[in-house]
């Protein structure tokens, strides 16, 4: 039986009006649109307030005061003190500064070279993964903790991996692909126990790039020593981030040649981006509950309605202990990238963790870490909602997505009813 025909033509006429000109952005874990209030806060620092914060004159002092205000706002978002915030160019640089900063400082210190062990997880962001790979090449021992089908690290595994040689644990607060929330607070308790037993050089870093603005964060309650943030996941522009460095922690700067950021990151501050970050952090803190409720309501309705309309879905990651705005689903029998591009043609933006290029497929390491097979690892799609999404956006996706999935499954030689019918 042939199944050709226009996908759009197959839709009912009254639905077509809804489809015209609609663009639905469901990729807020990749980046967020810049909030208009953030743009307005930032604009003067692109025009008349252009001073260098290190300058002594009033142009400089005006910029310095604004950077300090932004620093207080970013600190307040995570319950830190302003002088514990180091502005960076983004989350990746914050992760680099945290991990290299700790490990390089240690290599510089008069301690045994044998004391080089780092614990991380199998589902970290590529920046942390890459840093740990690099450390390993440099002779460090690296333990990559597994996650289980729920996408969550086990405290027992952390305890078992800890040795007297461990100097750093880097575990993300929430995963970027499946949104699962990791037991960082519980790991911090373990770290404190070890310190109390005399292991003074043991630190805990957490990548909170996805979690910030989507979960309440308080660094004292969390108990971490280092925490990475990114502005553009919080409705601010790209190019700005921060590292929380607990007071008293010695960190080797990765950028040298200036006194900025309390000697921890040399280079003239990216003032407009920092001001935007500060404003975005202020708004994220003030609107956190409202945003969480909004995103979760859309996400939950999307998932339950989709389950009612489309079969053979596999949800990736624990569905309770995860970020409120994110849904990661494997669509059986079809491949993620084919689905992503088909959705793109209908003006729906989502993402997939796997990428097929040059005849080699890199299935998502995160989905694989859940123990999923190749087919499911290849068929995963991330839908991440944001504060500007509407019920109509969800209605549109619920209209279009099942049809595309249906068509791709009709095309798929993996679909069971086809396989059964084929004389292979």
């Amino acid at each position, binding site marked *: 039986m042939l199944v050709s025909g226009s996908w759009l033509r197959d839709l009912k006429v009254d639905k077509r009006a809804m489809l015209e000109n609609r663009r639905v952005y469901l990729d807020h874990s990749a980046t967020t649109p810049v909030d208009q209030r953030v743009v307005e806060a930032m604009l003067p620092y692109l025009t008349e307030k252009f001073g260098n914060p290190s300058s002594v004159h009033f142009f400089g002092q005006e910029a310095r005061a604004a950077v300090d205000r932004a620093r207080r706002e970013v600190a307040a978002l995570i319950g830190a003190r302003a002088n514990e915030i180091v502005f960076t160019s983004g989350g990746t640089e914050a992760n680099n500064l945290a991990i290299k900063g700790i490990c390089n400082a240690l290599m510089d210190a008069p301690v045994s070279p044998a004391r080089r062990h780092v614990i991380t997880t199998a589902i970290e962001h590529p920046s942390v993964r890459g840093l740990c790979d690099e450390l390993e090449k440099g002779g460090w021992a690296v333990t990559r903790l597994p996650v289980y089908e729920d996408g969550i690290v086990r405290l027992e595994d952390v305890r078992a991996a800890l040795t007297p040689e461990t100097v750093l644990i880097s575990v993300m607060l929430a995963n970027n692909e499946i949104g699962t929330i990791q037991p960082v607070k519980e790991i911090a308790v373990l770290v404190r126990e070890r310190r109390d037993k005399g292991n003074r050089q043991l630190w805990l870093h957490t990548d909170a790039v996805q979690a910030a603005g989507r979960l309440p964060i308080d660094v004292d309650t969390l108990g971490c020593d280092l925490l990475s943030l990114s502005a553009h996941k919080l409705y601010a522009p790209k190019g700005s981030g921060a590292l929380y460095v607990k007071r008293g922690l010695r960190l080797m700067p990765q950028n040298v040649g200036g006194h900025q950021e309390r000697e921890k990151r040399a280079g003239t501050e990216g003032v407009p981006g920092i001001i935007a970050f500060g404003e975005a952090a202020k708004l994220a803190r003030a609107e956190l509950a409202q945003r969480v409720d909004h995103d979760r309501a859309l996400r939950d309705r999307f998932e339950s309605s989709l389950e009612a309309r489309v079969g053979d879905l596999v949800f990736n990651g624990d569905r309770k202990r995860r970020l409120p705005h994110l849904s990661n689903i494997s669509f059986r029998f079809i491949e993620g990238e084919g689905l992503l591009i*088909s959705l793109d*043609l209908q003006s729906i933006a989502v993402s997939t963790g796997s990428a097929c290029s040059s*005849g080699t497929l890199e299935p998502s390491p995160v989905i694989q870490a859940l123990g999923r097979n190749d087919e499911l690892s290849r068929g995963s799609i991330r839908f991440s909602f944001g504060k500007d999404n509407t019920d109509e956006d969800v209605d549109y996706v619920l209209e279009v997505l099942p049809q595309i999935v249906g068509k791709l499954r009709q*095309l798929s*030689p993996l679909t069971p009813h086809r396989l059964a019918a084929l004389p292979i």
Partner: protein
Amino acid sequence: MNYSPTFNDHLENPRSAGELQNANAVGEETNPVCGDRLRLSLRLDEGRIAEIAFLAYGCAPTLVCGSALTELLKGKTVEEAWQITRKDLIEAIGGLPSRKQHAAALAIETLRSALAQSGLLAETVITGS
């Protein structure tokens, strides 16, 4: 993703998708590295391709190459079909980035596997000798 309008049209409106129940030549190939899979079923009549249908699993270029290949093949003799190259297919869909050209390679490989199975091609054509 910047693919050609022809490419997008094939993706939105796949041609001749499905499985022929009365096929007399079938090819199914998998890219062992990335797992993309294409299946072609052909009904050959007096040495010509009378009907063709495809099934595909994989990234968008694999789906599109399957669809576009069915258009290129309609009415061709088996010898003409054997001559179709990866380059012909890539041109027919308005180009492919180099990292995605394996999709066209899989399509041609599947076609040749089906044609070889038909028994209508001289051994010399198949082996190229």
